[in-house]
């Protein structure tokens, strides 16, 4: 592939925001990805007033082009650093205005291209911003607590000979296993109950709902139990308190379930509208 005939920088775009003057004071305090300053890129055309702006940083092309990113996205430390920097900017903006977050590592060849995208998508971005105004995302995660073994670890599976010589041991082991299985089933049932209660009690306070895949794998805290629900809700700010209370009440009395309520988040999970015109216009 040939080197693009462009400068040494790419433009990293974090989010769309209304071009609010209030941000003039916020931006200088923000540090973006790669330690870069953040500024606002807005259309200045007369005709249609700027409906949306991008918060952007200039980043070195050599470290952010495709080749570099392919390598760097393999690096969990780099990914974390970048994700947290992206998040820091979004949070900094969200504290002052409505934010429509862009996907991590949204890059433009230069400012002219970023402006062209703003021009092309301005209306959709403005619509999205209007939809998200005065709304906040919360995460609702349910975990099934591990069922404690009746006699944890102390009862190894009896060898055939041992079972024969000590008839009680094998039966005790099986009963303990059965009890554990029961407890486990019960915890899952409680999780279902909790999920139903959340749908019944909390969801009415919300404007939208997204289900993320349940979390597992190396990034999850071990010992936290099994994550069985990983939802995000878009909540009108006026309903936030009622929503949180309803979510907490949903797990009351369910000792086999652990709730994790995360947020407030910028509306990451709700940034993408039901897909509007995507394909290139004729």
């Amino acid at each position, binding site marked *: *592939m040939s080197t*693009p005939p462009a400068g040494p920088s*790419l433009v990293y775009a974090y989010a769309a925001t209304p071009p609010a003057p209030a941000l003039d004071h916020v931006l200088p305090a923000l540090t973006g990805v790669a330690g870069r300053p953040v500024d606002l890129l807005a259309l200045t055309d007369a005709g249609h007033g700027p409906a949306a702006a991008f918060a952007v940083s200039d980043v070195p092309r050599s470290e*952010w*082009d*495709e080749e570099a*990113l*392919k390598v760097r*996205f*393999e*690096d*969990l430390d780099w990914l974390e650093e970048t*994700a*947290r920097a*992206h*998040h*820091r900017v979004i*949070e900094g903006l*969200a*504290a*002052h205005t409505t934010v*429509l*977050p*862009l*996907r*991590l*590592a*949204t890059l*433009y*060849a230069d400012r*002219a*291209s*970023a*402006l*062209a*995208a703003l*021009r*092309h*998508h301005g209306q959709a971005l403005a619509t999205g911003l209007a939809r998200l105004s005065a709304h906040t995302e919360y*995460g609702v995660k349910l975990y099934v607590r591990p069922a404690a073994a009746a006699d944890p670890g102390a009862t190894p599976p009896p060898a055939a000979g041992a079972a024969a010589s000590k008839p009680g041991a094998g039966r005790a082991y099986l009963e303990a296993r059965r009890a554990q299985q029961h407890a486990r089933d019960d915890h899952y049932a409680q999780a279902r109950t909790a999920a139903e209660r959340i749908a019944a009690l909390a969801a009415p306070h919300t404007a939208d709902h*997204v289900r*993320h*895949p349940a*979390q*597992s*794998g190396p*990034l*999850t*805290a071990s010992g936290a139990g099994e994550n069985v629900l*990983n939802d995000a809700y878009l909540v009108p700010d006026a309903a*936030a308190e009622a929503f949180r209370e309803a979510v907490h009440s949903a797990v009351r009395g369910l000792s086999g379930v652990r709730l994790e309520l*995360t947020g*407030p*988040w910028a509306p*990451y*999970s709700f*940034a*993408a509208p039901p897909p509007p015109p*995507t394909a*290139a216009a004729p």
Partner: protein
Amino acid sequence: MNAPDRRAAGLPDRQVALVDLLDRLLAGGVVITGDIVLSIADIDLVRISLRALISSVATAEAPRPDEDGARHGS
């Protein structure tokens, strides 16, 4: 640790769990077509293969080298 009022949005050093952040940053957010260099496909954190996140670089195969605004209607 008591969590007082976490509603201090914008508090820059509020440390969120990376896994929750990646749920949102790698699957959420608006994907705008155009000059985007990188877009990330749906991610399954169960078997995270970061390489699989990379799909393509638009600039590398930019269909039209002519300038952006020129393309606009009129």
